[in-house]
C-alpha cells in the first residue's frame, strides 16, 4: 500500500501545482486554513479556487496572488464583515485580476455530486428566471423525457484537480472520520482527481474500525493524510476546539488595508515558517478558551455472532 502520511509541506508540494483547479472545502466547520497558508508559503500561482463559501481563507489566497479564478456560491466573512482583497480584485476600479464563476449553494454542490458520480450533469430545481444563467454558461436546461413541456436546469460535473479538506481523525490508511457539520467534503473528495486531508489526529486502526459508519471518505480516495492539530484555526473542529470568532471579527480591519493585509500574510504565514510556527505565535494556552465542554456520543453496538 502506498504510504499516505505526509508532512503538510510535502502534501502541498507533491499534489498541488500552478494552474490547478483546487477545491478547499469545509462549511464554516473544518475549513483547511493550515493548507491554505502552506499554499501561500509555497507561492503556488494561477489557481482556480473552488469553494462553496469563499471566506477569509479565500481573501488570504487572493491577497497572496495565488488565485486567478474563483468558483463559488457565497463569498463573505459570514455576517461579521467583508473580504476586501476579494472585493478589490473584483470591483470596478480594482485590478480586476480575479475571474468569477458564480453559483448558488446547491448548484455548486450538485456539480460536485455529478463529478463524484461520473454522470455528465445533475438536475436542480433552481435558476429559472435568475440572472445567474446570463453570466454563467454552465447553467443549462434540458427537457424532461417523462413529461410534456417540462424542462429542468442542470449543472455539469465538476472534477477538480485537487480537493483539500480537514477532518477530525483518520487512520494510517487514510480512512477519514468526521462528525458535527459535514459540509461537501465527501462529495468533493470523490469528485477530485487527488485528495489531501488534514486531520486533528491519526488514531489507531481500532478506533476507526469501531465505528465504520463514521468514515466519510474511504482510504482509497485519499492521496495524502496530514496530521495537523489545530489546522482549521480560526475555523473549528467539533469536539477539539471552537471557532475563534474574535479573529473573524478582526478580519475586516486587516483586510480593508492592503498594507496591513500584506504585513499580516508576511508575519503569520511566511515568517511563521510552518503551522507549528503559526501555533507558537498564537501562544501557549491560546486554545484554552476555545476548548469545548465534552459531550460524548452514546456508543452503539456493531457486534455480530462469532
Amino acid at each position: 500500500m502506498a504510504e499516505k502520511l505526509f508532512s503538510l509541506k510535502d502534501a502541498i508540494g507533491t499534489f498541488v501545482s500552478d494552474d490547478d483547479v483546487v477545491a478547499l472545502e469545509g462549511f464554516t466547520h473544518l475549513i483547511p486554513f493550515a493548507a491554505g497558508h502552506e499554499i501561500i508559503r509555497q507561492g503556488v500561482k494561477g489557481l482556480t479556487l473552488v469553494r462553496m463559501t469563499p471566506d477569509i481563507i479565500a481573501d488570504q489566497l487572493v491577497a497572496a496572488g495565488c488565485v486567478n479564478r474563483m468558483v463559488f456560491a457565497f463569498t463573505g466573512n459570514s455576517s461579521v464583515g467583508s473580504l476586501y482583497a476579494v472585493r478589490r480584485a473584483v470591483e470596478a476600479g480594482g485590478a480586476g485580476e480575479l475571474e468569477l464563476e458564480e453559483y448558488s449553494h446547491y448548484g455548486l454542490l450538485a456539480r460536485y455530486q455529478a463529478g463524484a458520480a461520473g454522470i455528465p450533469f445533475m438536475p436542480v430545481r433552481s435558476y429559472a428566471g435568475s440572472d445567474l444563467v446570463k453570466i454563467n454558461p454552465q447553467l443549462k436546461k434540458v427537457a424532461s423525457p417523462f413529461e410534456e413541456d417540462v424542462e429542468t436546469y442542470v449543472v455539469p460535473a465538476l472534477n477538480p484537480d485537487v480537493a483539500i479538506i480537514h477532518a477530525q481523525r483518520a487512520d494510517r490508511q487514510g480512512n477519514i472520520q468526521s462528525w458535527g457539520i459535514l459540509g461537501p467534503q465527501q462529495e468533493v473528495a470523490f469528485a477530485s482527481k487527488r485528495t489531501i486531508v488534514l486531520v486533528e489526529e491519526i488514531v489507531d486502526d481500532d478506533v476507526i474500525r469501531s465505528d465504520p459508519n463514521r468514515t466519510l471518505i474511504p482510504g482509497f480516495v485519499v492521496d495524502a493524510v496530514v496530521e495537523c492539530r489545530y489546522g482549521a484555526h480560526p475555523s473549528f473542529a467539533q469536539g477539539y476546539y471552537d471557532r475563534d470568532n474574535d479573529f473573524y471579527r478582526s478580519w475586516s480591519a486587516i483586510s480593508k488595508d492592503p498594507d496591513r493585509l500584506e504585513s499580516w500574510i508576511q508575519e503569520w504565514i511566511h515568517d511563521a515558517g510552518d503551522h507549528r510556527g503559526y501555533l507558537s505565535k498564537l501562544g501557549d494556552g491560546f486554545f484554552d478558551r476555545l476548548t469545548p465542554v465534552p459531550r460524548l456520543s452514546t456508543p452503539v453496538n456493531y457486534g455480530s455472532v462469532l
Partner: protein
Amino acid sequence: MTSVVETTTTGPDPTPYYTVSELLAAVSCRYLQGKRRVFAGIGLPTLAVALAQKSTSPDIEQVYESGVCGAHPPKLPETIADASLATGAETILTMPVLFGYVLQGGWIDVGFLGAAQIDKFGSLNTSVIGPWDSPTVRLPGSGGAAEVMVNSREVFVVMRRHNKTSFVRELDFCTSPSPAAARRADPKVPTHGAGVTTVISELGVFKANAAGELCLASVHEGVTVDQVREQTGWPIKVMDGLTVTPPPTGEELRLLRDDIDPGRVYLR
C-alpha cells in the same frame, strides 16, 4: 433610520422603548404562527424563531443550511454552522440531503431571507450593485437563497433598511427570482412555492396579493403610508384594511432581552 424608535404609551400594555431589531424580530415572530418548519440564517430569523418557540408556537422548528435540524444549542449560535448547533442536536444531515431532500423535497414551510435589493414581486439581489462583471459593490452572492426561494412553501424577507436603493423598481441583478419572474423567463420549468409572501421592513409589512405583488399591509407605529411610498422604488399598492403594526409587547421584549439574547448578539 435611527436604531431606537420612541413610541407613546397606548392602551393597557405600556409599550416600552424598543429597537428596530426587537421590532423586526417580534413582528416576524407573529407571522410564524401556524408554521412548522422554518429555514433561516442566523440573526433576526434566529430571534424570531426562538421567540415563536417560547410564545405562540412551541413546536416550530428551525432547519439550518448546515444540515442541523432540531437544534438545542447550549448558547445562542453566532453562525449557521456553530459548534453549539451540533451539540445536542436531534439531527445533522449531510449537505446533499439537506439541499436535495429537505429543501428541494419541499419540507420547508417558511424560508427566511434578506437581500440588498427586492422588487415588487419579491425577486432578490444578493450578488452585485452595478454590472455583474464590473460591480460597484460585490455582494456575497446567492448562497442558498436561490434554493430557499424556489423550494420553500413561502418566503419571508426581512429588510432592515427600507429605501429606494433597497426596494427597487428593477434589480441590478436578479439572484433569486420570484416564481412570477421564473415562469416568465422559463415557462416550462415548474415553480413550486409561493415565493415571497411577506416582507418585514423597518417601516412596515408588505404582503403579496393574489398576483404575487407585494402590497403595503401594515405600517409601523409613527410611520405614514406616504413615508413608505417615498422610500419605495415602485408605485406601491396599499392593501384594504391597512393596519398599524402592533408594537412589541412587554412580554415579547422581555423574552427577547432576558431569555433569548441577553448578550445582545443580534439585538443590535
